[in-house]
């Protein structure tokens, strides 16, 4: 993924979560997490999203709250939480 594409993805994650973190900080923070931690965060996000069948426009603000709760409890940025979820490799511990 080139840098523009990467930044586009990160901007979407920021818009969706309300994050104010810079692109580079998001990547740094993501890279600093251990694989088990990413797997754990992935499972928490999955728990929130898989039970939700509400239309996106209604679900989005509720998802923002849930992602932010996970972010606060895991002491990571909300955009990093969602970035973890976008990478299916984080589904299982390696």
């Amino acid at each position, binding site marked *: 993924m080139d840098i523009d594409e990467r930044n586009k993805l990160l901007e979407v994650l920021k818009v969706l979560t309300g994050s104010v973190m810079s692109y580079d*900080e998001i990547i740094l923070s993501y890279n600093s997490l251990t694989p088990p931690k990413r797997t754990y965060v992935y499972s928490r996000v999955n728990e929130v999203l898989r039970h939700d069948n509400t239309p996106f426009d209604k679900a989005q603000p509720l998802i923002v709250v849930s992602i932010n709760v996970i972010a606060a409890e895991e002491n990571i940025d909300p955009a990093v939480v969602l970035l973890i979820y976008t990478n299916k490799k984080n589904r299982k511990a390696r």
Partner: protein
Amino acid sequence: MKTLLFGNGINIQFGGSDNYNSSIILRAIKNTKDSDYPKHIIVDDPSLILSLLGYLFLEVRDILAHRYDSYAFTIDEKQSLEDFIRRYGTCKSISIPDIGFEDYYLIYDLFCYKKKIVNPDRYDIREALKAFFLYSIYNRGRVNEIHKRYPAKLKDLFSGYDSFFTTNYDMNVEMFTKKTVNYLHGAFNIKAEVYNPNSLRNQMSDSPLKGYDVDVNFFYLYSNALTTYSGNQKLFRIKQGMQANEAVRKFAYAYHNDPAIKSSIEEWENDTNSLVRNLNEATRLKASDPDLNFDETYPIKDFEAIEGTISVLGLSPNNDTHIFKMINDNPKITKVIYYYHADEEKSQVNKLITSHPLEYEDVKLVWKIYR
């Protein structure tokens, strides 16, 4: 005369992390899932209040990027917005619980301007947001049990003062010291005027309490606890009862003593403007029963009358600049001692207290003594 003014810092010191802003917000979110959540008072569908919180937080990015500057109209809103950007603009990362719960009212007000949300919806939603936070702060009564963790020697600290004022809503210091505490921002156990059936407001034909059932199990959600982002807004609410009483007393006096004014007031009975009709009714009620009053539940007159030294402990100036302004404007105060937690507070307090000798003490050293 020595006065102690204290804030949430004392609850954080002895009550622990339950009283952090972030804990209050996280608990407020989680409480909505509880089976006994008071939906009948706060909101029928708790997902609505969570959605609001989500929407408000999503606006933070735009606020910090100055895209909300054109929605701040009053001086108060402009100053609060500027202060918000100053406090959060340099944060590398922010999540929902990082925003001060009172700052959500500022985001809400600006959001209402942007989305053209007007009263009564604007007021009703705001009240729901307030109850959402108050329910969490009260924490099923745990907030009033913090004094059980106070060390006995903390009595020595309180014994050094003649009077006590607080911005907290809980009664811990009062229960611990058995001394009277004045609740500048209201208290969980003091009913808001709107819920007092005996107040002048509720004697009027459009009484807001008409047809409303108060659930006494959740008395604290009907309290006069003040929560808002701006010191001036708090001050306005604090003085509202006092100023309304003063105005109605003067109208009632004129109604009794000046036939021309009496005739004008009587003409207001059928005015098309409801505020004018209400003034007519309030004046006539007051004229017929001089003991009828709007509630004055905030001890503002007592606070304005303090003299001598005032010590400020566990109270940050954020959102409460009105208190510091009142201290600064009181010529009977001879010295201010501010117990700081972080050095940055000093520059803020220096700007707010300019009329009195100001001393700083490290609050951490105080807590070391009273562990």
